[in-house]
């Protein structure tokens, strides 16, 4: 017979103090991380806000977002007023004040105008790479999840895909350079001299020439797609597996073929997961510099990608500017001064806001799609 009196506690519960200490410690670390994150964002916002936000309606410097990138000319005029003008307005000024003297002129590359070029370039790269990655990635995921029999070989395949995720992005850049820029086949009538292999096609003088796509949008998209492929494949496979087996059983038991079952009873329900992963991949792709450095990006470009093209597909073979690359250029490749800072911090803030919008978009979309599906 136990003594019921022992049920009554005397004093503090056992391990009470230890519990409190551990709690405070872990909580402190957590909040410290929050503080660091807040400081990070605060610094970026406070540095970039003067460049991006204005005091007048619409409170955002639209010129910064929509004008092309130009060299900044800083000079004093006769009266000693300091002017900071992007190249196009500088030329206008010169035309408007012919013969006037200009004093203390400095030029700062990439620091004038706006960042429309990089924004557009990043958008094109992102969209292109996602399309490629989704096509290849979801196809592979469907095969791995639904068709492949579990064998050591398939395990090795999965391992290989996962390993892709660990490869440094600069290595991807070099890979993209040596493969997509220099070696992939192209159908052309005029093969270049450095082609690795030229196979005549006996049609219109066309030749299948392994000469690469040159530094271009398509090469950059392909490289970036390779980079996010493991994420897309893994997440898509997860979402396919998460669809209840009962759906497949029921469909097969009613006489459906394998592909009918996948198309009608599995794929529609795995879409939220696939979309979530692709949106996460977007945020990653938007921010990568190394893979696009050798394959697509160029620091200065006068036209937007769709301008000055001979045919609509030319857009794929043109080079582009990109936001992360632009930030790198501003920070590392030109000397620092107060005039370049506006462009630098402004670009960083815009980039951050872009990523934030994409991330929250992904969360909203995911929540909305998830709530529609109940099983």
């Amino acid at each position, binding site marked *: 017979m136990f003594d019921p009196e022992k049920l009554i506690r005397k004093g503090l519960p056992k391990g009470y103090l230890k519990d409190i200490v551990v709690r405070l410690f872990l909580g402190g670390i957590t909040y410290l991380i929050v503080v660091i994150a807040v400081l990070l964002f605060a610094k970026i916002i406070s540095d970039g806000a003067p460049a991006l936000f204005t005091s007048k309606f619409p409170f955002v410097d639209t010129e910064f977002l929509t004008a092309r990138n130009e060299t900044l000319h800083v000079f004093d005029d006769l009266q000693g007023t300091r002017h900071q003008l992007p190249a196009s307005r500088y030329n206008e000024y010169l035309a408007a004040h012919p013969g006037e003297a200009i004093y203390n002129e400095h030029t700062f590359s990439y620091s004038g105008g706006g960042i429309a070029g990089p924004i557009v370039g990043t958008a094109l790269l992102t969209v292109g790479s996602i399309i490629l990655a989704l096509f290849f990635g979801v196809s592979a995921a469907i095969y791995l999840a639904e068709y492949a029999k579990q064998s050591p070989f398939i395990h090795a395949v999965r391992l290989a895909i996962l390993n892709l995720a660990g490869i440094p992005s600069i290595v991807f850049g070099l890979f993209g350079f040596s493969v997509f820029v220099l070696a992939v086949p192209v159908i052309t009538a005029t093969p270049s001299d450095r082609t690795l292999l030229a196979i005549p096609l006996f049609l219109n003088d066309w030749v299948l020439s392994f000469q690469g796509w040159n530094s271009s949008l398509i090469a950059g998209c392909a490289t970036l797609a390779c980079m996010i492929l493991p994420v897309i494949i893994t997440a898509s496979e997860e979402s396919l597996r998460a669809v209840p087996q*009962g759906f497949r059983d*029921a469909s097969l*038991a009613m006489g459906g073929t394998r592909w009918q079952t996948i198309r009608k*009873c599995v794929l529609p329900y795995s879409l939220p997961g696939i979309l979530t992963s692709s949106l996460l991949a977007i945020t990653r792709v938007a921010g990568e510099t190394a893979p696009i450095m050798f394959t697509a990006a160029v620091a200065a470009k006068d036209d937007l990608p769709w301008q000055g093209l001979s045919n609509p597909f030319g857009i794929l073979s043109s080079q582009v500017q990109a936001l992360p690359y632009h930030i790198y250029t501003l920070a590392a490749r030109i000397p620092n001064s107060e005039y370049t800072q506006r462009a630098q911090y402004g670009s960083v803030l815009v980039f951050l806001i872009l990523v934030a919008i994409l991330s929250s978009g992904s969360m909203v979309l995911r929540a909305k799609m998830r709530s529609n599906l109940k*099983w």
Partner: protein
Amino acid sequence: MGTAIQIRNVNFAYGAKRVLHDVTLDIPDRQVTAFIGPSGCGKSTLIRCINRINDRIPGARVTAGSIHIHDIDIHRPDLNLQELRRRVGMVFQKYNPFAKSIYENVVYGLRIAGVKNRAELDDAAEKALTSAALWDEVKDRLHTSATGLSGGQQQRLCIARVIATEPDIVLMDEPCAALDPLATLKIEELITELKQKFTIVIVTHNMSQATRCSDRTAFMYLGKLIEYGETLQIFENPKNPQTEAYITGAFG
């Protein structure tokens, strides 16, 4: 009444593990045949052989013996598997309506068979839902999600889904295992009505279910068929002592 399914000396294995040993029985047409037995006795495996849904499990195969449905060997190499599964429908233990509307669930089998005519689909849906005793309850919300129904209704929806393609045989693998007693009785009442049109094979570990709604009962144990006969005879006076021991609860 003819024989719908002839099972002859069927041996079945999952990989190296033998699960069915020399099972032989005839399942009569337009009657309810129940399979009872303790867990792992092979009753589910056996009925899953009838519509060959075990095919999708790697390593699972019939190692000897044959199954004929209306005199056609279902393991012949030129068998139209999709047609077999349309003629032999299956209702699962865990009801699994697709996360679509009620209407889409019921017409799914017809859609994948290639029926596109909307009027035809509507008719078939109404007929199937009426046969499943569900029409009155859902006719005003055909296009709402199927997951909004109660458990018993969802299982009846799965039954409607199966009978929409007008099969000959309906296999039921413990259809009431996940349902409360009232929903169970409704489904049993449904089974008693359906047997006028379909041959029904039902696996159950609830012996009262077998006594209530089946005409013939087969008792299986450790992969072997121990006794098979008229339900009342099996439960009033079983011939095999193992059967008696099981149904009186002398062992589990």
